[in-house]
């Protein structure tokens, strides 16, 4: 992963422009509002890290939500999971497109977490809020009300992690100048915060009634 510091931003911008120009296909009528934007607002390492990391973050949410039908989830949890899968699958495609449009490697959308070279070998790093392998196993083993309870608890934690990634992004120098990044990050913040509140209510209802409908 390329590291950039402040003094290199302008230099990198020039390179980014050159790279984009060189990999551009023949000019067609359709396109590259992306290219116009990337020329205007250079992206930073923090933007790339955010987009790449969020793909791996979403990938795990999709696996977790994908268990709802087979693990006896209640109707309301199943609806929630359907929505999460739909939303986050589409968002993965958007993030991959954004990265590729800028000549950056795009994670595959299935790997949970972010692959990195560490100490000479490849490791998968967990983004904030992500479940450990043990927690994933625990969720996968659960059924019915227990699945609902664990799913909601863990997905709340997962969403809080996504929200913290957005905050980290906005605290980074030069980050989120790109309108697509800004909008996407802002949307993740709002959508997932709203969903956290919804899930807390569902969790409470679950605990109180000893099972959802």
């Amino acid at each position: 992963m390329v590291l950039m510091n402040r003094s290199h931003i302008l230099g990198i911008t020039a390179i980014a422009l050159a790279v984009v120009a060189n990999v551009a296909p023949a000019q067609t009528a359709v396109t590259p509002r992306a290219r116009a934007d990337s020329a205007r607002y250079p992206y930073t390492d923090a933007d790339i890290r955010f987009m790449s990391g969020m793909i791996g973050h979403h990938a795990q949410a999709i696996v977790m939500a994908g268990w709802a039908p087979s693990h006896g989830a209640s109707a309301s949890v199943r609806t929630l999971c359907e929505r999460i899968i739909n939303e986050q699958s589409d968002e993965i495609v958007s993030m991959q497109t954004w990265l590729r449009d800028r000549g950056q490697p795009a994670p595959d959308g299935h790997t949970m977490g972010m692959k990195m070279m560490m100490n000479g070998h490849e490791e998968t790093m967990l983004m904030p809020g992500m479940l450990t392998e043990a927690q994933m196993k625990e969720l996968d083993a659960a059924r019915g009300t227990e699945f609902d309870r664990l799913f909601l608890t863990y997905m709340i934690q997962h969403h809080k992690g996504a929200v913290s990634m957005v905050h980290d992004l906005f605290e980074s120098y030069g980050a989120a100048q790109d309108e697509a990044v800004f909008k996407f990050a802002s949307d993740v913040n709002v959508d997932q915060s709203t969903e956290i509140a919804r899930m807390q209510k569902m969790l409470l209802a679950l605990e109180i009634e000893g099972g959802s409908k």
Partner: protein
Amino acid sequence: MAFVYPLRSVSLALALLSAGACAHPGMTSSGSTGASPDNSISVTAPSPDPRVGLKGGLTDAGQAAWNMRLLSNTPPSTAFVDKTNSDLAFDGKYVIQGSYNGFQVWDISTPTKPTLRTAYVCPASQSDVSIYKNLLFVSGEGLSGRLDCGTEGVKDTVSSARLRGIRIFDISDLDHPKNVGNVQTCRGSHTHTLLVDPHDQDNVYIYISGSSGVRSPSELPGCVKETPDKDPNSSLFRIEIIKVPVAHPEQAAIVSSAHIFNGLTAPTTHAAAAEDAAETATAKAQGKFVASMHGQEFVLGPRFVDPKLDSIVKARGGTGAPTGADSAALRAALPELLAKMIGTTVAELNAPRPVTQCHDITVYPSIGLAGGACEGYGMLLDIHDPAHPTRLTAAADSNFSYWHSATFNNDGTKLLFTDEWGGGGQPKCRATDKYQWGADAIYAIQGGQLKFLSYYKMPAAQTKFENCVAHNGSLIPIPGRDVMVQAWYQGGLSVFDWTDGAHPKEIAFFDRGPVDSTKMASGGSWSAYWYNGVIVSSEIARGLDVFELTPSPLISQNEIDAAKSVQFDQFNTQGQPQLVWPASFTLARAYLDQLARSKGLAAGKIDAARTALASAEQASGGARRDALTQLATTLDADASGAKDGAKTRTLASTVRDLAAKS
């Protein structure tokens, strides 16, 4: 394949068109014979839907239209190519089109050929625009917006160069807009709503809706990003209200922050999802245990309560039934207990978390109400005191993802909310996407409460490369009906009738194929609004589209003409004006067409009324007045036996008003 009219209604449409073409006010759609138009043709949308399978392309995509016609498409001016076009405001013969790069002003006096008046570069997302007299207001929330309108962005996390809030321009000289003031806000302005107070000539108010990150207090003093449980001055739970002295816009400033989210108690809900159920009032009256979370209340059932009470009895070494003191002890311990159960703290549990901001607020000053689309809730607000709006009621819907905007019907008896599921950049109109998701929800306003009626979604399946979801629209001023035109991004435009709120029905549409049929490329209609006789749509990638409605069995020429009789000097969609139709022969004929369509009055009586109107129109002065007065009397008598007595009486009243004008 381009498809314009469904085959079987072509001949009728042509007949109506030709009648319209040589008509002057007073000609009925059936000519002067008085015979009623044949409305026995069933009027359903073309099938298969021509919007499915359209060829892609930025400038040459396939098109499908039904009961409306594209008059012109004008690509963006040079500086605005490849930039995202956003919202619209209207000023006389001009439409002001916001863009992430600034704004363009188009002269649409010839709707088939709009011309550019001004292109003003001043980057800001999303450049939501409103107009009041000579003042233009533009929203900015992104991190790269600059006070000096520069295009280089703002890299520092804290910078005095940054603009997040409202820009104010004086456009007395349209060729040289002048930035006369700026108001910075803590979360920037994603959208804004201009409110003209009927009792205050000197000032206008702007409600700021901002949902993105809170600024550092080093950049803007007073901004607090912590939640209210940690800091009561939180910037997170309020809308900012700016007061603008019209004569001195440079003095515009924030005057209050409405905490309309405070103490949000159990809202009325629609979907029968377990998480949204609550019956707290009755429960409390019965002495049941009620838990409170984020200002919402839940009844705790015996399965939860009984074991807890038993533990308390045991803990004090007692036996038998729990006492009043035991119940009190449980009540006291509840917050801590619940917080632990969902893995949080009591402080966080009590914080009004579910809603932190409104996305968009539509004010309807004539009736003193506003509709707020606020994250997890659709809200009804009282705005009689513009600087201090208060919340009347709120609705939650488990099918809604992101409450986006609100539109009242003209009577103020219904409120329509939109759900911008996916944020506008995602394809949510695929065959696999649920109808109820990313749709509109229609509510009845009854006794200060919101009662769910139905969902409406643009019904044609779009591809995975077309961003599509409910977005901005406005009422079409067809008298006697609630009709709306709405933008659905690359889902195109949909015109639907929601007079019967429980059964909305599409009555016109326009769509293009995807901007790019090989990959996702953002495009489509951001906003589609009716203005002074035409429909104007801001196409994100393709520029400015202007349409007109074409007559059909679903919308008659008279109804279209009556809609055109409603004219505005300036128009901001989120500041809903009250629609008033001047009494005219066209208006009377529009009502007759509607009565014929719904068989609300006997066919013979409708024919007789048409004949009477036609001859009254041929007469003048006293003769006309008498003829119309006589007709009004007849219609009033007809009303008592009519299936639609109310509309017949409305017609009678219109005819009487017309008599008074003669």
